């Protein structure tokens, strides 16, 4: 290992993971005295940055845990899984699994799914833009649905949860429903499947309609519109279609061979 490689390794070892006295002492041999105060500046920077970056992606988790607990979580996550890229917006995808493995949080078993939903919203906000093609809806009148597919909004993601995950998140976003109602649904053990999509530039989330998850999943798997509707008997398609167009969920109606945008989060 070159001298420069050793120097860089020593500083990374002192900043990534749990700070150890051994790592600090190894660094001490490579840098000028005084060094302890300087190292502390870098460690404080990474603590603050970890907290800020995760809070930006997980604002509802911050509210559920409180600032102090969230800050401790961010610090623990930084130590366990420091960033892999120089774009902090990419960091935090595995927070849900990290929460699921945290013994101290076992009495809040819905937190991992809240984290998955917030990450889906964050990714959705950054997804490639799409231009709505309302004229293409005419294909639904003119062509065989066995040879058509629906192009869905950027960032469109389904998340099935054993918890009322949509209610918990939207109660914190918009008080719809209010927190009391979300808490009742939680106590009643009500599961929800969340749908995340983008309405223009705005990320949106709601609970799916009956049959809607089946429709979207089938479309995502490459099924034709006709085959997807076969899977979604519970869906009131005549009511769904104008709603999907108005809220930006439906972008276009295309011939079947074109690629599909919808993803499944878990």
């Amino acid at each position, binding site marked *: 290992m070159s001298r*420069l490689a050793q120097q860089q390794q020593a500083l*990374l070892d002192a900043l990534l*993971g749990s700070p150890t006295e051994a790592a600090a002492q190894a660094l001490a041999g*490579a840098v*000028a005295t005084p060094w302890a105060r300087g190292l502390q500046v870098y460690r404080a920077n990474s603590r603050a940055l970890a907290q800020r970056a995760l809070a930006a992606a997980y604002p509802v988790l911050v509210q559920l845990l409180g600032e102090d607990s969230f800050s401790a979580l961010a610090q623990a996550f930084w130590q366990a899984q420091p960033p892999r*890229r*120089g774009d902090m917006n990419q960091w935090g995808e595995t927070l849900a699994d990290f929460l699921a493995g945290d013994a101290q949080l076992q009495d809040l078993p819905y937190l991992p799914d809240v984290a998955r939903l917030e990450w889906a919203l964050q990714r959705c906000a950054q997804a490639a*833009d799409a231009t709505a093609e309302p004229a293409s809806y005419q294909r639904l009148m003119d062509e065989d649905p066995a040879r058509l597919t629906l192009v869905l909004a950027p960032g469109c993601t389904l998340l099935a949860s054993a918890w009322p995950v949509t209610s918990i998140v939207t109660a914190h976003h918009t008080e719809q429903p209010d927190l009391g109602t979300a808490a009742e649904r939680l106590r009643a053990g009500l599961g929800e499947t969340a749908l995340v999509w983008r309405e223009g530039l705005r990320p949106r989330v709601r609970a799916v309609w009956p049959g809607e998850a089946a429709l979207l999943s089938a479309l995502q798997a490459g099924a034709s519109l006709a085959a997807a509707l076969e899977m979604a008997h519970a869906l009131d398609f005549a009511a769904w279609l104008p709603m999907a167009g108005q809220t930006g969920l439906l972008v276009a109606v295309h011939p079947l061979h074109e690629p599909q945008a919808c993803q499944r989060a878990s």
Partner: protein
Amino acid sequence: MSVHPRHRSATVSTGIGWRQPHYRELLERRPALGFLEVHSENFFADGGAALAVLEQARAHYPVSLHGVGLSLGSVDGVDPWHLAQLERLVQRIDPVRVSDHASFARGRWQGGTHHAADLLPLPLSREALDVLCANVQQVQDRLQRPLLVENLSAYLRWHTAPEDAPLTEPHFLAELARRTGCALLVDVNNLYVNARNAELAGAPGNPRALARAWLDEIPASVVGEIHLAGHTLVRDAQGEIAVDDHGSRVCDAVWQLYRHALARFGTVPTLIEWDTDLPALDVLLDEAAHAQRMTDEAAAAASPLSTRLAA
């Protein structure tokens, strides 16, 4: 991009760091500014609202893309993913300048490649200079344009081997510019923070004089942008240290150094950076106006006409 000294008193050469809380207000008011600066990494998305707002701003202002994550000094090289994102953003925005730092953050940890998400200092060694030059060259080749590379606030200083006598930082950066054709982004506040911390660590000399000497060692022809910001003096049980937090107005000592820099480098596009405890937009505009007045005064003092009038 011209990086030669120039004096254009009629044009606005000062810009501000444009951060999320000011997105809407700035687009509504559209104050006269030479450019807007944003952090490149905040716009690596495939699409969405942030990118749309930047494209809106680009219709009215030149945009300077300032990176914090390329890790140009890393022995493990530049992340190809990061470079691809930056290339796409440069193509989308057509920025007036693209910059990052003479620092590292990327490296191996527990069997994987990680990024410390900070601007970590390089030793001022020939070996580090070689690595930095190679990475800067790679980025410039990919982007098909010169990069600007910024001097850091560093809170640690590396020992160098006896056989590899350290360069001075200005010499190190001047060599980087000479070998790669990159320009330098001179952060005057960072110079002053480093000089203050050297003083706090017991080094001899006055921080203002040290920082002036630093500026005097930089070749004027390679300076493409200047950064100004505020810093904080932190005192606690572990001692006292100046921290470059970009969270306050530019201090008097840094304004004086800026005057010295203008006299040496001529009119250089200058950025007011503010990243923590963001104040009202008007405070940033006020700082930018102050920098602009100093630039105009320096340009007037340097012009042949004023020289004749003064004679």
